């Protein structure tokens, strides 16, 4: 699936460039999580993806986070938590009706959902190494 990354343009800082590269690599998976699984609309997903990038950039700068690539599983956890909080808010405020599928997903811990997604990430890594 082709997605337009929220991170475009040339970053001066090499670290930021690395982070944006990793983020854009993961963006397809993030988009699937937000739209297909958590049921967000395309516009909502695009907005949350921008927030996620900002968070991920700062997260990678925290003490002890040695490599943006190794931090990808945490990006997926954050994505699921963002999506869960947002969807709960939207449904809770009556803007959108829920469904059994969404309710089931919202009941699960974001870290568990992310773990399932991380398997896809591992597959992504495997394909990358294989290429």
């Amino acid at each position, binding site marked *: 699936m082709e997605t337009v990354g929220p991170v475009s343009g040339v970053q001066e800082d090499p670290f930021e460039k690395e982070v944006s590269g990793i983020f854009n690599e993961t963006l397809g998976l993030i988009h699937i999580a937000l739209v297909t699984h958590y049921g967000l609309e395309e516009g*909502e997903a695009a907005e949350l993806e921008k927030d996620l990038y900002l968070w991920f950039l700062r997260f990678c700068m925290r003490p002890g986070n040695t490599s943006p690539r190794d931090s990808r599983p945490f990006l997926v956890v954050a994505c699921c938590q963002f999506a869960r909080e947002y969807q709960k808010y939207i449904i809770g405020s009556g803007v959108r009706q829920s469904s059994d599928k969404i309710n089931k997903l919202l009941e699960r811990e974001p870290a568990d959902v992310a773990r399932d997604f991380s398997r896809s990430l591992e597959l992504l890594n495997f394909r990358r190494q294989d290429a």
Partner: protein
Amino acid sequence: MPRLARVLPFPTRPERATLSPDEARQAAQVYLSTCNTQRLDSMVDRVLSNPDVLAGVCALLREMFETAPASAAEEATTLYTRIRNLGRPLGLFDERDYFLGETALIAATALRFMGKFGDAERWLDRAEAGFRHTINPAPLLANLAYARLALRYAVGRYDDVLELVPSLVTSFGKLGMQREEAKCCFLEAKTLIQLGRLQESLPMLTSLRDSRVVRGDRILLSHVLIQAGNCFGSVGDFAQAASIYEQALPLIQERGPSVVLAELKWSIGDTYKAQNHLAKALDAYRAAQRDYASLTMETSVALLHLVAAETLLSLGRHREAEWEILAALPAIEEQKMVTEGFAAVALLRESVRRRKADPNALRELREYLQARK
């Protein structure tokens, strides 16, 4: 409801204003260089509403441990309180918890540098409460565990340090945090020195001195060199000690008065004293004391009064020694540097009152405090 309005009402969304690391650092510098009482609300708000600037402030505060620990502690505690009482979201996702943990850890470390160990412990607990709720707590909690061990070293619980440090070294190794791993090994080497196990400590310090990670961190390298010099001085190899201090000096002097520069002057004093050059030792101790005073490290200033008093007694300058002791005692009591009823303090005070300073009580008190430095 219009389409846009369905996106915008998410209650935790902050302003999406990004700054480059340079811009954030610049804004952080403006904030910290403005006196606390003269900061406009808009300036404080800019820090609290932009995590990039807040991260810049935290980075600058960490650089102040060695040069201005009192200011670092004051700024970090103020920031922590403001974040806690903000009443609106800070940053994205787990960033509020992260910054609560980070500011509390900075406060704790700065307070440890100042010798305020009880306060430091409370701030470590606050840091843990923040870090526990972040998305990847392992490296943050490992840093916190290091801070706890450093505090145990500071209060003289050396057995605890030696028992717990290997596990932390393993944790840092697994997390790929090489600099922190080196800091742990350095803490272990310092602890061995305190226990008189110099033959075990020296190879560790030599290995650290030659490691790529330590050589890439001028502050850590200067600390390692000073301790290595102290070790060589303690085993009577004064030429080697002097040579190592010479290597440390340019690394340290470039940053002006700092904890490590004061430590170096103190170490040079000890080396002179071991060679019986007492007048030169006294000059070095007083120079170290001036540095500690400029850093508002009252406990170290008080301890150096006692070190100077011992040296003055050896020089036969009893009256000056009494003045030094009298200058030290109020701070020792105010800062609760000894447990209540510690006999040497009473003996020393009484001996000074009688104009005959008791060298044994003086040595006992100095050794007790030095072991907890």
